[in-house]
């Protein structure tokens, strides 16, 4: 029963994340800076991290990236997403573990690290360290989108049923 519940909840959250990445492409927001996205799908990552734990978050995030790259992306877009997500998840898990920061702070750090991860991937792919000039812009945009994502997630975390916690992959 519990195993089935895990599979179902993982499938549902991955689907929601996939839909959110699609919905985002429909929102015509132009930040005036090329390459900046809100990253709505990360609402799912942060929410799952808090409700279900880190293993679930890594699992849901990895599945989302693999599926969205297969469906809509290219090999390159997979590299950028995966690198961003790896940095962001690692940072958020560590920062959450300290217990000193709230959802918004953790999510902001996640946003910044996501952009840094993508920058690292871009430097490696293009072999152009000069791209590092984008760091300040990426840090600012990462913070703002991270705060936004964190606010939505903290509302969701408060409102979603606590009973959902029983499917956490972290607890045996």
């Amino acid at each position, binding site marked *: 029963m519990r195993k089935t519940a895990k599979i179902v909840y993982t499938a549902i959250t991955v689907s929601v994340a996939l839909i959110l990445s699609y919905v985002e492409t429909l929102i015509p927001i132009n930040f005036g800076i*090329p390459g900046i996205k809100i990253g709505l799908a990360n609402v799912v990552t942060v929410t799952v991290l808090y409700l279900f734990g880190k293993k679930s978050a890594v699992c849901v995030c990895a599945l989302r990236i693999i599926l969205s790259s297969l469906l809509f992306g*290219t090999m390159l877009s997979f590299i*950028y997403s995966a690198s961003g997500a790896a940095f962001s998840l690692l940072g958020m898990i560590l920062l959450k573990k300290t217990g000193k*920061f709230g959802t918004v702070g953790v999510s*902001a750090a996640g946003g910044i690290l996501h952009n840094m991860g993508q920058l690292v991937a871009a430097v490696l*792919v*293009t072999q152009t360290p*000069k791209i590092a000039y984008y760091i300040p812009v990426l*840090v*600012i945009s990462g913070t703002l989108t991270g705060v936004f994502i964190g606010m939505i997630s903290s509302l969701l975390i408060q409102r979603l049923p606590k009973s959902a916690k029983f499917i956490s992959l972290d607890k045996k």
Partner: protein
Amino acid sequence: MVKKEVVKRDIILIACVLIAALAALLIINLTKQSGTVAVIYTNNEEYARMPLDVDAEIVIYSDGKEANTLVVQNGKAYISSASCPDKICVNTGSISNENEMIVCLPNKVIVVIEKEN
């Protein structure tokens, strides 16, 4: 209450990061100098050097395919067309200051403004 402490730490963290980034941005903007040449890189190799004082247009080939078109006009460089779907490089607009760049990640094309003496 603990919650208040957490919110306070969040705000401090976010404020520190934002201030640091804004300061860096300010320094970059204050020290910027206009460049003299637009250097095009494809696949990590120098592809062409376009002096900014000569109006010109160049079609950039990457991996043997027509990738981007770079236009130099009135001392500024911009990408006028791109084969990639997102058109981020086209939307970047024109650049003319040293170290400013246009990046097209799908085509691995990078245009950087440099200064030649």
